């Protein structure tokens, strides 16, 4: 006999994140490391458990291995449960048809049975692309109060940026009357955050109908939401204010990392009441050598710094040798930077070795672009790599 869950979360984690190039050549975007000790997916997962949602289906497709292992049984997020917890949902072979997930809506459609098992009243749809802290239980309250079929979280964005987002036009009572994907001339600044709560029956009806429509792209933004609006369903916009960052590009990923740096950082992870959980390996504390110089940076467990680090984010187990200099950079786990190497305005993916006296990137200024070094690269001694480069193999 199964119990029931009021709300089940479905986390779309199958995206490639192609605009992160080298950083997502081996891992899906939600598995990209962030902020020293996290991966992007830690944010929606931690938000779920902190919001009291303990049943999360994680839909994987592109390069799922790292992600599968990382999520495991959901233990780090307290999502290891008898009933509920974290479940990884890859596309599967069916008796009659075997399909990859064709679109966001199709991914959910293929897992309706999974959702149904918990007999939820509501389904929360999340994506694994964003860095933010949000109490989904408040959004669910709002959804219930308004008796909505669908509630979409929206964020006020500057008018000049609005054309990059899906924009909601909203009545005074918060109900949505128009939705435009990336409008050239936006008439509202309320951007969809890609977070939806559906009443279960409505979701199931629309997904089933959508699946029968051969012309559909099976996408929430392109098909489901417009279709629901067209049919006059009660759609509500839930206004979120707070830090929210799409880390879909190299520059936005760099910026979001830097938002954690500084005493009064834009984004604060030290809130004990809203912890961000992550799967961590057992590593010793960080060590700063006698001649180390660390300014305006964040470091985590396993780091060893004997050189100079400024305005940077260092992942776990990063070694910066004597005489090496790291400035304005995001260094992911287990990177070794050898003596005399200089790293400026770079993102370096995990397990890469930067040889002695190598010079990577260019001093950050308005013209310079971020240089990206992929994972497990060996950068030979004395190598010089300019700005705005993307290196996956040397």
């Amino acid at each position, binding site marked *: 006999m199964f119990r029931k869950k009021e709300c089940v979360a479905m986390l779309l984690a199958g995206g490639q994140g192609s605009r992160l190039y080298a950083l997502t050549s081996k891992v899906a975007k939600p598995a990209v490391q962030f902020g020293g000790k996290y991966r992007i997916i830690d944010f929606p997962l931690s938000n779920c458990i902190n919001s009291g949602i303990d049943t999360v289906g994680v839909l994987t497709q592109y390069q799922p291995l790292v992600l599968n292992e990382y999520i495991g049984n959901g233990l780090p997020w307290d999502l290891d449960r008898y009933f509920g917890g974290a479940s990884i949902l890859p596309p599967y072979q069916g008796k009659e048809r075997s399909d990859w997930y064709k679109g966001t809506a199709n991914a959910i459609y293929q897992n309706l049975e999974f959702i149904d098992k918990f007999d939820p009243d509501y389904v929360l749809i999340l994506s694994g692309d964003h860095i933010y802290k949000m109490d989904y239980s408040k959004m669910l309250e709002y959804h219930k109060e308004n008796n909505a079929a669908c509630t979409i979280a929206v964020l006020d964005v500057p008018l000049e940026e609005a054309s990059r987002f899906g924009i909601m036009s909203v009545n005074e009572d918060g109900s949505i009357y128009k939705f435009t994907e990336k409008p050239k001339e936006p008439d509202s600044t309320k951007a969809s955050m890609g977070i939806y709560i559906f009443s279960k029956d409505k979701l199931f009806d629309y997904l089933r109908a959508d699946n029968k429509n051969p012309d559909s792209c099976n996408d929430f933004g392109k098909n489901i939401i417009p279709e629901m609006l067209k049919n006059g369903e009660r759609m509500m916009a839930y206004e979120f204010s707070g830090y929210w960052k799409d880390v879909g590009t190299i520059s936005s990923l760099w910026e979001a990392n830097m938002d954690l740096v500084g005493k009064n950082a834009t984004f604060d992870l030290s809130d004990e009441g809203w912890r961000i*959980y992550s799967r961590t390996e*057992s590593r010793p*504390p960080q060590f*700063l050598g006698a001649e180390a110089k660390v300014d305006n940076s*964040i*470091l985590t467990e396993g780091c060893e710094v004997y050189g100079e680090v400024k305005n940077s984010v260092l992942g776990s187990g990063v070694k910066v040798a004597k005489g090496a200099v790291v400035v304005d950079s995001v260094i992911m786990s287990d990177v070794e930077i050898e003596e005399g190497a200089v790293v400026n305005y770079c993102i370096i993916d995990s397990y890469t070795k930067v040889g002695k006296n190598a010079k990577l990137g260019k001093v950050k200024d308005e013209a310079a672009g971020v240089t990206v070094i992929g994972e497990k690269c060996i950068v030979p001694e004395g190598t010089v790599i300019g700005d705005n480069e993307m290196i996956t193999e040397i």
Partner: protein
Amino acid sequence: MTVVGLIFSNVYDRNISEMTRKRTMASVPFGCRYRLIDFALSNMVNSGIDKVGIVTHYNYQSLLDHIGNGKDWDLARRSGGIKILPPFITAYDSNVANKLYSTRLEAMIGINNFINRCTEDYVVLSDCDIICNINLSKVIKQHEESGADLTVVTKKMFLTDDDAGKHTIIESDDEGYASNVYVSTSNTIGINPISTNIYVIKRTTLQGLLLEALAHGYKSFTLDVLTVLAKKRLVKCYEFDGYYAYVHSLAGYFSTSMQLLDPNVRAGLFGIKHRPVMTKVRNSAPTKYTDGAVVNNSLIADGCVIEGEVIDSILFRGVKVGKGTVIKNCILLQDTYIGENCNLNCVITDKNVVIKDGRNLSGHESMPFFIEKGARV
């Protein structure tokens, strides 16, 4: 071959009473993010032991909080895993001459039920205050092959005047059998093989010894068991050659902690492949170093915010160091808050201590200034 581990969590509490007033020796914080028991526990888990009994006596709330269900050591199991063994006896029986060691034997008699229900072939006994990373499988293998009743892990240590009477010295013969056991001798300055209080014994042998101890009213493991067996040439020594330290006083806690600033010590404790030291995960954010922070030769946990100067020090999780403050040779435990323009030298702050702006506090290496849990200065 199956093995069960037993860890004694309260031995030597009195040695470092400043820190064990409200916690067990096992839960004394050590090395930025660990508790002493993490070393004994990790040693067992890394050696394939997945059933560990933790013998407690009193004050063990902090220990229970730390261990939880054993998840962080992968010891949350249906079968085996962590077993907390609360007391059946009173600690520090007033009739016993050698109180510390009597506790161990009495404790084991008290948990007879647990031991009798075990089906494992061997039992590894370990104290909770041993700071080392040892492969116990090797000790067990040697024990199995030797046919000895008991194997004791020894370590050659340089003992000073301060160590007098605090160790059991075990000399061994050419074949590795314990030949002489010295308890509480004072004339021990120099290098001596001391007992690490890690023992391997066959479960059935241990059960027999415990029955005998109960029947004869034996109190001391060292005097009534180890010494007697050694005389019969039934005790083998296993000499451990890795890093080993113990905590026998507050000054010892201070100096042992400071040894962690030596990269060789860290390599011997934390740098051994496939043998990580595991501890309770706290999910602190990474540590922030602000503009103008100066941190040299220091070991820092996650969750700190450092705006001042930190030299030759050890900072636990969630420590805040304000602007203009200089911290030298200090050990600041979890969530210590140091205001602005303070000067601290040779200070140990227990958890949640608040040092207000402008304070000047200093101890000496031989007598560090200890500030108790939750104090405001």
